[in-house]
């Protein structure tokens, strides 16, 4: 099979530069969202109004804003407030995704922690665990089981939402595709249809197995 000449350099650039950055932002955003989200979600189960009101506000703001607006706020507003808060496009996108993702994880964690029966808390207390030990060693490990399907779903959403970084020029998969479209148009050939279709195919190949996995876990674990 003979491929047209323009394909190979485009594909190499998009996979080596674009896909690499997409996966890198996704990994950072997933890890950051998980750590911050599980912490906030667990703290949200404490009945102390100022604390739960503050966490609630954090969740509702970052879940309520379109991710694009959040990323704009980090990329354009923060440097205007203080020059030290200037981030690269990739970092700004990762921070934006962490704010949004951690709000999602916090909400899911709260539900998972509440679903653990009170007896588990009492048994852990009877064994001499303090609040931190009780949650870290007894409650959260059980809650994680319930948290796993939504976490896989979150990973799919994070991977797809990394494309929003394109808008501020971060070289993720969509942006690298767009650059190649522009380069080829400049050289007199238009391949926007093929390139954007290819971007969709790559995302589909990554997301589809993960959504199947999330559905499977949902059936198995809940």
């Amino acid at each position, binding site marked *: 099979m003979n491929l047209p000449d323009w394909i190979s350099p485009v594909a190499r650039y998009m996979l080596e530069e674009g896909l690499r950055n997409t996966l890198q932002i996704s990994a950072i955003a997933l890890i950051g969202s998980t750590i911050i989200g599980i912490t906030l979600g667990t703290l949200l189960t404490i009945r102390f109004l100022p604390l739960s009101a503050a966490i609630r506000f954090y969740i*509702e*703001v970052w879940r*309520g*804003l*379109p*991710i*694009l*607006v959040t990323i*704009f*706020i980090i990329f*354009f*507003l923060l440097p*205007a*407030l203080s020059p030290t808060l200037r981030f690269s496009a990739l970092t700004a996108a990762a921070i934006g995704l962490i704010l949004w993702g951690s709000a999602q994880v916090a909400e899911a964690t709260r539900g998972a922690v509440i679903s653990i029966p009170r007896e588990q808390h009492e048994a852990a207390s009877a064994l001499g665990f303090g609040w931190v030990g009780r949650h870290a060693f007894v409650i959260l490990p059980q809650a994680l089981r319930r948290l796993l399907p939504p976490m896989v779903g979150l990973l*799919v959403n994070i991977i*797809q*939402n*990394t*494309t*929003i970084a*394109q*808008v501020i020029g971060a070289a993720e998969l*969509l942006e690298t595709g*767009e650059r190649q*479209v522009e380069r080829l148009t400049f050289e007199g050939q*238009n*391949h*926007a*249809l093929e*390139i*954007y*279709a290819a*971007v*969709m195919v790559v*995302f*589909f190949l990554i*997301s*589809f197995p993960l*959504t199947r996995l999330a559905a499977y876990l949902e059936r198995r674990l809940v």
Partner: protein
Amino acid sequence: MTVQLALLASSFLGELWTYLQDYGSELAAGLRRTIQISAIAIVGAFFIGLVLGAARAHRIPVVSQLAAVYVEIIRNTPILVQIFFLYFGLATLGAREVLGTGVTVDFRLDAFTVAWLSVMIWGGAFNTENFRAGFEAVPTRYREAGFALGFGRLATFLNVTLPIGGRIALPSSINTYISVLKNTSLLYAIAYPELTTTALQINALTLQTVETFTVLAIAYLAIVWTMSAGIRLLERQLALPEERR
């Protein structure tokens, strides 16, 4: 310290007021377009979800499989790439005849068409899943009771499955509508002048970044929080009699 903070806050409020007087009407026009696009897309997504969700739940041959393919493609690819595909990708086809049918279609869609079409297609796919889950949650014995009373398949759907399954699907479908509204911000990528695009254009012109993003964030949060509050109200209003507490 307190006095300084109070002065700082009041001077910011003053600046915000002047900013709104200068650019309020432009921002309002952007907000109107955001709401208009969302409204078209939400109505469209409602009917797509209703029809395809019913076809999926009742396993109507061919339609059900095609709906499944549509849902999986849309749910597993980023909406921003879908917008790029519709706006920049399809445009390369130009105006051409569709597969020998003799019908000429111009694939160079304008920004407005791509705006409502892209978010509608996206919302329709998610809504198909919402309604499918809702209709499938209706116990089979309810439908059997409908058949026993002499209702046909369509009448049973309209009188039994739809009122009960529709209520079950309502909260998740409103969540989808909220996402549709938030996704209209991505139309910034094709420079459609909705709220986000308008705000960013004003920002590029004036560099009043703090005022711009304060107004932008408050506008989105006001709409989204109102809609979420609406979900909770509706959920209580439309709860099935045996669930009402």
